[in-house]
């Protein structure tokens, strides 16, 4: 018997059972096993992690944030390597990244969508050695660059001991992101005193600074976002002002707090919601937040993979060459324009026909006019005329070339994987893996891609039909107006394309005809808005979502839908909560067993 490959193309929603309470583990296990498969998306009964809507009654007097419960999470989220490098840059007031991140062994494990899940980031022998070398290199750089060293120490007013103590306190606060205790000051001054012997060729004070820096950069208080608050108030553990400052800065800026946040933390005012709200608003307007918004969407859309697509030259001609890179650029610029420049939200991402094109992409979209090969120009994609019929052919990102070409094979459209992407990443519904020994689509009977997919996957009583017929294919079929590189079409291999389908949304089938209606249906779906909020929660909270997050996600999702929240406003909604600003009194499940 000839074997065939299992098609390797899934976005895989990761659920980590070990981080859930026992009762939730059972439920997750139930929805995770293949036999349950696509049920959640079809009938809305996916259980605690499914995407279907749930009825939640809020008590009278409910205000945003008051009822959002914190869930057990790590007290020691290790900095990601990007956060580490950003922090080094700001801690030493550098003009550019230090490059020392190259000393750190890469983080390739895990599997979380955003690679920042604190409970998964470890320090092993290889990484510890990297931290050591990087700390030594930074200490040696300080000794080699007097101006750099001067930028982190108090001015010399004649009293070396007082100056050393002032340095330890001030630099220590910025390195540990909290004030040092008196004992810690004493301990670090003892290290400071060893500097002269450790660096015999350096000035004694400078040598003390160098060895303290070397020590602090290896401290767990620097390498982890340590949250040590334990005092319970109202059934929760409020974070200290310094801990709030770090949570905000690493969530929104991917780096350490700035002087404003530290100043507020020192005064203890980050326990005041109004103050926190003001800081969140300020931070979201900073360029560092723009980078965060870009990163989130790059990971969510998996747009890095555009660089690996390889449209078939024989089918698409010259436009195929370098198309992936052009699409990747256009996608990043489009996200930046909508989310950062225009401060818009999910609805706009799904509905706005805004994009950026160079000459190559203008050709893909059939645009008239003159476009430069290297310059990307913002355009509103206009209606297209195909076979004498003029119609609006584009809406938001699922109808634009980056998404369509990314979710296609080299020659043909790929309704299955377009559907899988939408189900997993846009509706947050679980899907089952494909069974063994699937023949390639190219061997299926039929003329159009839709016919081939239907014949291969929708046979009555087959194992494939369970997921494909009512869940996966309907999303993909609605996008059959686009070929493998996202060009609009009304025919496929000489036959008219059929884009009518009934994808499942919010627990029921929704009839759509074509990509515009699909985009509108997605934009109007509470499930889709909750899913988008869920991914933001994963990123901002640096953890996988859990069932207890559901009320919060439903509220934020509904807010996004009904009030046309911008992405920035959605972030405010998620961080201005007790779920973000407090800790749970319950420790992680393993501790209570």
């Amino acid at each position, binding site marked *: 018997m000839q074997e065939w490959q299992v098609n390797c193309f899934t976005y*895989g929603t990761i659920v980590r059972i070990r981080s859930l309470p026992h009762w939730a583990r059972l439920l997750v296990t139930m929805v995770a096993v293949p036999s349950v498969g696509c049920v959640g998306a079809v009938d809305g009964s996916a259980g605690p992690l499914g995407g279907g809507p749930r009825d939640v009654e809020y008590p009278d007097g409910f205000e945003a944030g008051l009822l959002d419960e914190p869930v057990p999470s790590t007290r020691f989220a290790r900095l990601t390597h990007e956060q580490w490098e950003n922090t080094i840059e700001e801690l030493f007031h550098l003009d550019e990244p230090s490059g020392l991140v190259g000393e750190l062994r890469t983080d390739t494990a895990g*599997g979380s969508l955003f690679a920042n899940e604190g*409970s998964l980031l470890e320090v092993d022998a290889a990484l510890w050695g990297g931290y050591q070398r990087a700390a030594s290199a930074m200490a040696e750089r300080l000794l080699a660059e007097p101006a750099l060293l001067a930028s982190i120490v108090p001015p010399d007013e004649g009293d070396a001991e007082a100056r050393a103590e002032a340095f330890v306190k001030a630099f220590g606060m910025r390195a540990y992101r909290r004030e040092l205790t008196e004992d810690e000051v004493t301990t670090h001054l003892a290290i400071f005193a060893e500097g002269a012997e450790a660096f015999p060729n350096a000035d004694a004070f400078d040598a003390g600074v160098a060895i303290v820096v070397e*020590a602090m950069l290896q401290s767990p208080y620097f390498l982890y976002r340590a949250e040590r608050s334990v005092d319970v108030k109202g059934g929760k553990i409020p974070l200290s002002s310094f801990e709030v400052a770090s949570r905000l800065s690493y969530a929104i800026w991917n780096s350490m707090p700035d002087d404003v946040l530290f100043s507020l933390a020192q005064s203890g005012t980050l326990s005041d919601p109004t103050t926190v709200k003001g800081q969140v608003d300020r931070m979201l307007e900073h360029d560092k937040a723009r980078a965060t918004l870009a990163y989130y969407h790059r990971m969510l859309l998996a747009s890095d993979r555009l660089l690996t697509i390889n449209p078939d030259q024989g089918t698409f001609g010259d436009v195929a060459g370098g198309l992936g890179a052009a699409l990747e650029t256009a996608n990043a610029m489009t996200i930046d324009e909508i989310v950062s420049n225009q401060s818009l939200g999910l609805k706009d991402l799904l509905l706005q026909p805004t994009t950026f094109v160079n000459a190559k992409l203008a050709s893909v979209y059939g645009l008239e006019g003159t476009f430069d090969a290297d310059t990307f120009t913002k355009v509103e994609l206009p209606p297209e005329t195909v076979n004498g019929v003029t119609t609006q052919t584009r809406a938001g990102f699922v109808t634009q070339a980056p998404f369509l070409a990314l979710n296609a094979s080299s020659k043909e459209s790929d309704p299955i994987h377009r559907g899988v992407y939408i189900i997993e990443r846009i509706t947050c519904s679980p899907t*089952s893996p494909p069974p063994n020994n699937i023949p390639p689509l190219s061997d299926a009977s039929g003329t159009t891609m839709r016919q081939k997919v239907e014949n291969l996957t929708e046979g009555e009583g087959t194992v494939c039909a369970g997921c494909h017929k009512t869940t996966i294919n309907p999303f993909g079929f609605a996008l059959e107006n686009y070929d493998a590189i996202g060009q609009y079409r009304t025919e496929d291999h000489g036959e008219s394309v059929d884009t009518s389908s009934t994808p499942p949304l919010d627990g029921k089938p929704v009839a759509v005809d074509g990509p515009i209606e699909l985009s509108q249906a997605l934009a109007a779906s509470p499930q889709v808005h909750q899913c988008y909020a869920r991914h933001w929660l994963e990123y901002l909270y640096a953890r996988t979502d859990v069932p207890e997050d559901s009320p919060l996600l439903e509220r934020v999702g509904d807010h996004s839908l009904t009030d046309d929240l911008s992405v920035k406003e959605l972030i405010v909604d998620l961080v201005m909560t007790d779920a973000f600003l407090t800790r749970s009194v319950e420790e992680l499940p393993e501790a209570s067993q």
Partner: protein
Amino acid sequence: MKMRRRVVLKGIGGAALALPWLEGLAGKAAAQGASVPPYAIFVRQGNGVKQQWNGPFGLEADEWFPKQLGAISAASLQGQALESLTPYASKLLVVRGTNQPNVDSQVGCGHARGGLTCLTAQGPTSATMGAGVNALANGESLDHRIGRELNPDGRESLALLARGPSTYLDYVLTYSGPGARRNPVTNPWTAYQTVVGEGGNLDTTAMELLQKRRKSVNDLVRDQMTSLMSSPKLSAADKQRLELHFDSIRDLEDNLMCNLDDVGYAELEGKSPGYASDLGDEVLQAARAHMDIAVLAVACGYTRSAAIQIGSGNDGSTRYSNLDDNAPMENFHYLSHRRLSHDAMGDVIPNSDLLHHYVDIHFMRAYKYLLDKLSAVELINGDRLLDCGVAVFLNDLGNGPAHSARDVPIVLAGSAGGLLKQGQHVTVNNGDYLEGNHAQLLNTIGTAAGLRKNGDQYLDDFGDPALPKGVLSELLA
């Protein structure tokens, strides 16, 4: 890469350059004692090999395994991908008939299945079933088990990776436990520093200063971590992670035996930069540097296991060179599919079956380099390091186009102190298909590396308990 150029440059020149640095290990290894304990070094290739398969070119001939079962000879290797191993024919044990557990339907991607089962003999965790590229193995990998049970202080095994850029499936090979995929070291220079600690080739005074500085800092950090770990409010998971961190803090030892000499530094510098390249020649050079480090680590007693992954999960960006003209070929994943695409749609690549064979030859030449280095280290009793343990070459797929879990290509070199058969091409289970007997293979390798059950029995509990158990008697001397 940040090499210590001052160290590299000061010693270059003269007679020292004439000697490959690892040969200098002979004396160093001898200083350890009469022998080196058994070990296992794993080298992994992805995408399957060109063995018999019915594809777009019709029936493709097997050009990988020795031509006949039984004694391996120059004639049986001639023309096959393994031909470059001819000088080691008497040290080889080539294995046919091992099959990975067939868990494709639980994973959703053949590459991911191959990667996660390769050294674990486990399917995916229940939490990551169906997660495709994000699926994680439901158990510890063999290299880690060896390190945990046999290394000094339970030190983790060396996990090394040389590969080009990947946006699909990156590292797949080693796990510290269920769902806990490890982070490999990619830069050989970092791998070296991990083994020796910082300070290699410093003069005595500088070394003493660095040691003292390190100790002061380490003492401070240990105190801080001890304080953190003593908190009753710490969760078990947090405590476990902090303990791993705590255990990773090592004081700097003046471990002259493990330090490279100047020639070694220079060689490492020359090989390392391509560890993340998409050019196969550079990736394989970096893989050779990783092999140098693995041999060094075994010879000086740092570890008894190391696992080297070459290429990303599906090696989808690396372009190995054409043996006819040295030009980069299409990326390996395309060649393994025989098509100009990562799927089954693109145009067929002319001669891609032959080109896949060329890639196989490249990997075998790299593997031979490992055998050369192991063989170059002579112990005080006259044994060679190669004979003390086992160097394992394996692929995480049987073949490319079908992503087969069957008949996964395996080469073992070295007898592990006489435990393993040598100079033979064998098939297991009388050639009959037995799903998941890959677990038996790993139990056999674990046994060869020194793992025992209840103190003196051969290992038989590694891998998914539902899979065939015990060692493969066909492999034992």
